[in-house]
């Protein structure tokens, strides 16, 4: 019997936290970009599912995880394209369309999975970890943080890429203006619809990648509803992070810890019903909303379709 603070438990907890945080991080960063540009992207859960399914299919038939990530991202973009067309170009209600996309994709991916894999339940081989020399030799922390698949490190690098994008590039300025005062961007000569479309498609790619990670690296297989609210947690993260990518990272790690508690406790042999543990991330959401939600300042034009000539 090992205790709560044993090496095994801590190692499993931290390793699991990082694994669980990556899809949340990708979803959160993606959602953040849409929200910055003024689109409340509720369809992100559906984009993750599309990414998870297509990512798994791609990886399964090609035998390459990287090709799987690519097809996963493409799946997310495909769903985002519908969102961009309906909500950005035509200007339909973002919440209604987002919910419809999420529900639709839940059904569609479950259905496709049923026809294709319900007999065989294929699994992917375990993902190859990229072991970082020296650092991975540190006890407890080493294996927890420095023995992951390469995509994990890329996702972490993306946090700082996003930070640079928002702070130091013209596109970052345009995105922020599209969400705060789209009319100002329009009269500055930048196409608001195009800017928002770019943001929504990027969200789709990141969410799809996150979904593919869930299926290919996290689970090694696709099951219906595999995203299990990860997209919605991404929305919460984006709202709480107030436009700062680094905060999304912190939030994702915090949620990741909550999510990985289940596995870690089983590993450590502590018996708590898994249902209780699975509630933790959502409890954490509520606590964080109470603590920080009041101060969350969202872009002024969030959720409002842009139409030229109306104010």
């Amino acid at each position: 019997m090992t205790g709560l603070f044993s090496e095994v438990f801590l190692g499993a907890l931290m390793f699991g936290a990082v694994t669980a945080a990556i899809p949340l991080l990708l979803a959160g960063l993606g959602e953040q970009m849409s929200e910055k540009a003024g689109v409340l992207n509720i369809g992100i859960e559906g984009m993750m599912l599309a990414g998870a399914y297509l990512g798994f299919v791609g990886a399964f038939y090609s035998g390459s995880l990287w090709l799987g990530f690519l097809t996963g991202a493409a799946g997310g973009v495909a769903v985002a394209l519908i969102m961009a067309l309906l909500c950005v170009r035509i200007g339909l209600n973002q919440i209604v369309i987002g919910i419809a996309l999420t529900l639709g994709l839940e059904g569609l991916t479950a259905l496709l999975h049923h026809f294709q894999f319900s007999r065989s339940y294929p699994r992917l081989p375990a993902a190859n970890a990229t072991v970082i020399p020296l650092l991975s030799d540190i006890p407890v922390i080493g294996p927890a943080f420095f023995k992951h698949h390469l995509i994990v490190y890329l996702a972490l690098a993306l946090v700082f890429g996003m930070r640079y994008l928002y702070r130091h590039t013209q596109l970052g300025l345009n995105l922020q203006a599209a969400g705060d005062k789209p009319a100002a961007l329009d009269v500055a000569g930048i196409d608001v619809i195009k800017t928002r479309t770019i943001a929504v498609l990027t969200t789709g790619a990141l969410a799809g990648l996150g979904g593919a990670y869930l299926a290919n690296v996290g689970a090694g297989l696709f099951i219906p509803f595999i995203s299990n609210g990860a997209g919605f947690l991404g929305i919460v993260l984006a709202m709480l992070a107030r436009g700062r990518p680094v905060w999304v990272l912190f939030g994702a790690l915090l949620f990741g810890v909550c999510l990985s508690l289940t596995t870690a406790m089983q590993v450590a042999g502590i018996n708590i019903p898994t249902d209780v543990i699975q509630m933790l991330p959502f409890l954490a959401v509520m606590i964080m909303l109470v603590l920080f939600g009041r101060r969350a300042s969202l872009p002024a034009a969030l959720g409002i379709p842009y139409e030229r000539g109306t104010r």
Partner: protein
Amino acid sequence: MFLRLWAFMGSLSSLPGADTCDIVALAGVTKRFPGIVANDSIDLSIRPGEVHVLLGENGAGKSTLIGMLSGLLQPDEGRILVDGKVTQITSPRHALALGIGTVFQHMMLVPALSVAENLLLGGPWWQRPRIEALEARVAKITRSLGITVKLHARVSELSLGEQQQVEILRAMVRNSRLLILDESTSMLTPKGIDELGTLMRRLVKQGLAIVFITHKLKEAAAFGDRISVLKLGRKVGEIPPERFRALGEQEIISQIVDLMFGKQKDDPEAVERPIRKVSVEAAPLLQVTDLAAAPTDNAPGLSSISFDIRPGEILGIAGIDGNGQKQLAEALAGQRVTTGGSVRLEGTAIEMLSVGERRQRGLRYLTDDRLGEGTVGTFPVSINFFLKQVGAPPFWRNGFEQRAEIDKRAAQLVREYDVRTPSLKTPVARLSGGNIQKVLLARELAEGAKVVIFNKPTYGLDLANTLASRQRICATAARGLAVLLISTDLEELLSMCDRIAVIASGALVGTVENVDDARTRVGRLMIGLAA
């Protein structure tokens, strides 16, 4: 007609080959929106080194015109010529590329970004914003204009005047040759307005063309070189620079007043005012003394409002829309908290009474928001007649609706007020605006009315219903009731009122007897001149 032909010939001569100095010219430009003609074949020439003032009331079509020049709207007819060439300004980006920079009435800056970031907005997206280059350029421009701009301050921290300077600066940074200022003085302090005027003079001296939109006559006369007057979508006159210089300020102002408020010969609504006898000795039915209310975020407050209305009299309230008309009506009806002053109905103070109590004593208010505030759209016509009596006998007894009583009385009112409705059960929102207004009239003028406040009673109605409503209002006064008629339609007031008071920024700035020269005197008061 002659003027239009002349301008058309003028635009012909500005086609390629002919020498011209117009940067931008409009030739017969028309823009329609559902139900209205916002711009009706407008001709305009905009030249470098000139401040071209577009003067007109709200709804005259100024903003539509600006929308077309800045690429936000496309004309339905007519042509826009840029440098003498027919050009379709397809988008704001295109307008900027042509050298047309616009400072809109509503600030077009992103509040969460810094001034520098706002100025950089619109650069190629793959580039890093070039702050250093911008700083050098801004320094050069601000020096030549004698203004200072805090480049690294957040826009939300700047005053409105400072934000406006940033917008002008933005147009200059983008090499604009034509600067459009849309109602730019409306949110500025008097000092800010003077500074803007100085800035405009400096800019035109540098060879820029400016289009300056305003409804304030004094500013037009003070800052302009050329004035075009718009009225109900049509250009009714122009004062070119030669004439502008030759005339004194007073003459210019009186000319413009004639153009803006002068009688149009083809006005179908113009009717002779019937002479009513208002007994001067009769005690006023409504006496308002020093009524005041606090301003809110989107409405001016009320101050020093005093007037009397005698039985059988119609007092008009004229003014440019949004100057406190609605606030005044609501304050009188008890729907808005007042901070001072008294309202007396037949000599009894009522300012402390609730909306319902005031109504019971005979004070009635016909709102201009017929569907929002005046009726419940999904309720049947019959119930809407008694909305303000819900629960009261004989239409309700012990909390139960008396259907038969309601229908009997409603049918009577439908006949009496000529409400065209398929049935009493029809939801009131399905009726036309004119018929909804009749429902309101029937409800408010019903038994016990002594003083009636009409807020824009004919707004949005067609001619037949407009005339019917006016007739009803006159009949109300003829019955010996006191009528307060709030309207932004000067013709309407002139054709009906005994006296006309003018409201500006929430205060009554003067009251005029409706006799021969009332039109000019009211017009002068409306644009901020002493009568």
